[in-house]
């Protein structure tokens, strides 16, 4: 009986099946364990190390931007900053809000900043450091150093911060750096992965992306936002160093393995062709006027001045500018945030007559002696086109037409030459395409012709459009920088080198789309003679401003130098017939509100007989080019001749040779 149930249930055979099954299951566990612990143990040992040891990127030293004489335009200064660590604060049984309150009594921490610190302390992982204030004075810094032991979790540190010793002078051209936002980081990751030929889905790519993310989270790390700082970001940044740290699963740094630090490569220094003192002079000369000035060395193509005024102080952006201040800058009608020389496009006005004159001579449709009668207005295609001088210039030819800037002459010249030829010559003078100089931004302007108008305006070219183009109005636009190139080309002729801004430190793709090509021997001489007449022959529009060295103080060959030039006024509004008075005169500029006044333009080169420096000045809403812009151009050219920066080659930074003793690849 007692064994009976086992027979009925065939228990023993079931037990054997169970034990067999158990043996199989135990065998499977053993096999899997053997796979992990015997055959793949090395792989997991490596992974275990990778798990614990993290490479934290250390911000590299950002390259310096110099002017041609070695003056620092963008450098690094010692930065005293204070961070707090919420975890350590709570470990010291303190409260983040109290600590911030206490700090704000000694440090310049705004209410808004305090709120954002508290928000960070709430939202991010508690062991991450939060920046409280940077760019502190030595006094503040030492005060915090004294307090720090009582306030557990507050650290005063020394690092580097970008600084711009010329303040607003290079806001546009050199640009500025700021803390990277999410978009910047994404862009950096994309660029970086492209450079090393990885995609974000590979393991290596993801690793690289993580390193970049961490690098830009570092309180010291900044990213170039504009100008040379943004264009040359990669060269200026260099290669981040690596600090090996031991981390736990949450990413908390347990220990720093200092012995395994890998130093990075500091960013390259960049030398610009700019002359900072000259640029400063140009800005001062403008005074309260808004506008831009560009000076180009005709012989070398080097850009010596490229300024836009007014401008904000880029130093204000480095630690983060307040929203109110930024909004004020955005809403300022003088557009301080805008690079007027490079990104601004204006109707070139009468300065375009240089192009029309050259085109008319080249086409052969107009000989220098051909005379046109100016009665103050001219009839083309069923309407009147007005000359700027209502009583008219009488009989004018090419020379006097340029000298007096007679609109009627150039209406006729444009009509005879035709828009296609004018557009071709305009492009040969450097208008209508963007120049890559080594800074962000840059506008191409527009050189219209039939094809352009059909593509852009979806409309055919009317004959009347050519007439307006003859005096640089209508669809023609150009940046002041392009006008400087145009002026350098008329001064230097077909051999004028391409303009460049960067002397050393970063490669700039040469995008000289337009070649000047050959002109008939006399054409350029005739135009130059006309430009000389503007400033130096009685009746010229800028006759009062032709002497660059009136006192004869400059050394040879610049003694008693004169400049040649061409004035221009660009209308910012259409003058309706009703606005002209009985004599056909438009309302005077000084009777208009500032923002409706014409832009005053002047392009000039000096010395007139042996051109060395070319210059373009645009005074926004300045009124008349010949009376407002011309004296600026003269004074800037006088200062340029006096300094004669083209006489000395741009400086070569020593650091280029002596970067780091070891651990860098040869470049």
């Amino acid at each position, binding site marked *: 009986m007692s064994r009976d*149930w086992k027979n009925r249930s065939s228990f023993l055979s079931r037990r054997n099946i169970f034990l067999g099954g158990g043996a199989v299951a135990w065998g499977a566990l053993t096999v899997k364990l*053997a796979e992990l612990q015997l055959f793949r143990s090395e792989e997991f040992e490596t992974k275990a190390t990778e798990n614990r040891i993290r490479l934290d990127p250390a911000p590299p030293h950002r390259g310096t931007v110099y002017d041609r004489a070695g003056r620092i335009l963008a450098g690094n200064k010692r930065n005293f900053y204070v961070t707090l660590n919420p975890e350590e604060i709570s470990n010291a049984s303190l409260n983040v809000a109290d600590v911030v309150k206490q700090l704000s009594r000694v440090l310049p921490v705004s209410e808004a900043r305090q709120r954002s610190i508290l928000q960070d302390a709430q939202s991010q992982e508690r062991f991450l450091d939060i920046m409280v204030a940077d760019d502190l004075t030595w006094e503040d810094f030492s005060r915090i150093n004294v307090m720090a032991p009582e306030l557990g979790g507050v650290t005063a540190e020394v690092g580097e911060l970008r600084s711009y010793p010329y303040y607003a002078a290079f806001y546009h051209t050199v640009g500025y750096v700021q803390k990277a936002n999410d978009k910047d980081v994404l862009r950096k990751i994309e660029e970086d992965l492209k450079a090393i030929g990885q995609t974000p889905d590979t393991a290596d790519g993801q690793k690289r992306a993580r390193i970049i993310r961490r690098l830009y989270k570092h309180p010291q790390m900044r990213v170039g936002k504009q100008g040379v700082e943004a264009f040359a970001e990669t060269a200026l940044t260099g290669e981040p160093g690596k600090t090996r740290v031991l981390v736990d699963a949450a990413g908390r740094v347990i220990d720093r393995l200092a012995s395994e630090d890998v130093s990075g490569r500091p960013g390259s220094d960049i030398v610009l062709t700019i002359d900072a003192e000259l640029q400063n002079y140009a800005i001062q000369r403008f005074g309260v006027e808004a506008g831009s000035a560009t000076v180009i060395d005709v012989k070398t193509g080097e850009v010596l001045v490229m300024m836009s005024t007014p401008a904000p102080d880029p130093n204000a952006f480095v630690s983060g500018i307040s929203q109110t201040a930024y909004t004020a800058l955005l809403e300022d009608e003088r557009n301080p945030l805008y690079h007027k020389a490079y990104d601004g496009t204006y109707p070139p006005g009468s300065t375009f007559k240089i192009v029309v004159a050259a085109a008319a001579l080249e086409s052969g449709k107009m000989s220098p002696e051909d005379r046109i009668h100016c009665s103050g207005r001219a009839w083309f295609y069923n309407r009147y086109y007005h000359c700027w001088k209502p009583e008219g210039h009488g009989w004018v030819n090419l020379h006097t037409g340029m000298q007096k800037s007679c609109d009627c002459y150039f209406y006729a010249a444009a009509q005879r030459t035709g828009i296609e030829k004018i557009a071709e010559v305009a492009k040969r003078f450097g208008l209508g395409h963007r120049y890559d100089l080594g800074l962000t931004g840059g506008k191409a302007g527009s050189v219209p012709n039939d094809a352009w108008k059909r593509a852009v305006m979806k409309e055919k070219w009317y004959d009347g459009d050519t007439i307006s183009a003859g005096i640089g109005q209508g669809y023609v636009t150009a940046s002041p920088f392009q006008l400087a190139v145009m002026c350098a080309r008329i001064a230097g002729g077909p051999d004028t080198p391409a303009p460049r801004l960067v002397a050393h430190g970063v490669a700039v793709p040469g995008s000289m789309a337009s070649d000047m090509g050959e002109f008939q021997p006399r054409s350029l001489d005739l135009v130059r003679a006309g430009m000389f007449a503007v400033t130096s022959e009685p009746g010229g529009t800028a006759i009062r401003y032709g002497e660059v060295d009136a006192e004869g103080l400059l050394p040879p060959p610049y003694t008693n130098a004169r400049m040649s030039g061409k004035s221009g006024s660009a209308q910012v509004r259409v003058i309706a017939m009703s606005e002209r008075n009985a004599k056909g005169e438009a309302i005077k500029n000084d009777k208009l509100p500032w923002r409706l006044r014409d832009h005053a333009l002047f392009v000039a080169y000096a010395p007139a007989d042996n051109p060395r420096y070319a210059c373009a000045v645009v005074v926004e809403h300045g009124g008349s080019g010949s009376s407002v812009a011309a004296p600026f151009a003269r004074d800037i050219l006088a200062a340029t001749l006096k300094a004669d920066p083209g006489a000395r080659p741009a400086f070569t930074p020593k650091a280029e040779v002596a970067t780091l003793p070891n651990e860098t690849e040869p470049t």
Partner: protein
Amino acid sequence: MIRRESILGKLGGMHWFLLLTIVAIAVFGTAVLFSSASSAHDMQTGMAVLDARYAVEHAARFGVMMLVAVTIALAPLRLWAGLAFPAYFVGVAMLFGVEFAGVVVNGAERWLQLGPVQLQPSEFMKLAVPLALARYYHQMFQGQNNARYWVHLPALAIVLIPVALVLRQPDLGTALMIMGTGLAVIFFAGISLRIVAGVLVLVAIAAPLAFYFALHDYQRQRVLTLFNPEADLLGAGYQLNQAQIAVGSGGLAGKGFMEGAQKELDYIPEQHTDFIFTIIAEEFGFAGSVAVLIAWGVALYQGMTIASKSGSAFGGLAAAGFVSTLALYVFINIGMVIGLLPVVGIPLPLISYGGTVMLTVMVGFGLLMSVHLNRDNNIALRGII
């Protein structure tokens, strides 16, 4: 001479080999738990850090439960047979109670609040179901009803009612454990192997369907993770990947007691409970891992021997059922830690920190001992008490 039925006689007649195996495993578990909170070389200071909080609690728990187990062993088997059905009914009633008045913990209703006491009836059912089944079959064998075609149908109902209730909590892991244990008892009770084979085929067909239609998203993710732990390292694959790193980096001989590096940096969640095996594998290597498998193999084999020597169907089937439960615990736990099975929250008995599993397992061992001590007697059972 000491009579076999006296207390001393019973103590002497204990299955000492099994008892010592259990003690050995539990002592080893205590050491591992000590290591789980300690470190030979702290990462920051380099000094040894010793923390016995889990170890002490574990050892104390084991000691107390050992007394409970011995007490259960010393009581007559008839008593436990008599309690089988009542216990089962109370358990089912409590499961219904959970259904209507349960306490929600971690998104699942598993606990029943009775005054100050929180009970987890589903855990209790892991023992109550095999006991009830053993008793049911015992009476069927007694009445010579075991060959009837319907005999296994009520048994199936005894299994499926609690399984359905536990699934509703929802607690897939425990439901599978109860189901596995129950089916094991039906298997030991002699259900035709053809039916077993048929069921296995059905499961093979139904498993993919269940995978796509019956599982929660997180459960499906756990299964998928198994096949490709690297796919989602920060999400579902994280725990498994980190566990495999710990296990794999242990190598043949391990890194040594308290020398495990992965544990110090909190890489593995639940490391002192469900993932305790990662510490064994990392610090004692393949050798230590296999030793644990062997120790458990020996314990289970002893348990099975006790079952096959039982004079009563109740004792034999209850013992076999409990051994099956234990085997499932060990296999599923180690299997999930090393990536052979999907992650389900099942601890490693006698080693993982935690009171519930210790209670279940030690009560089970007590019953096993009782079966051993009563191996020569059959018992006559009638009715439901």
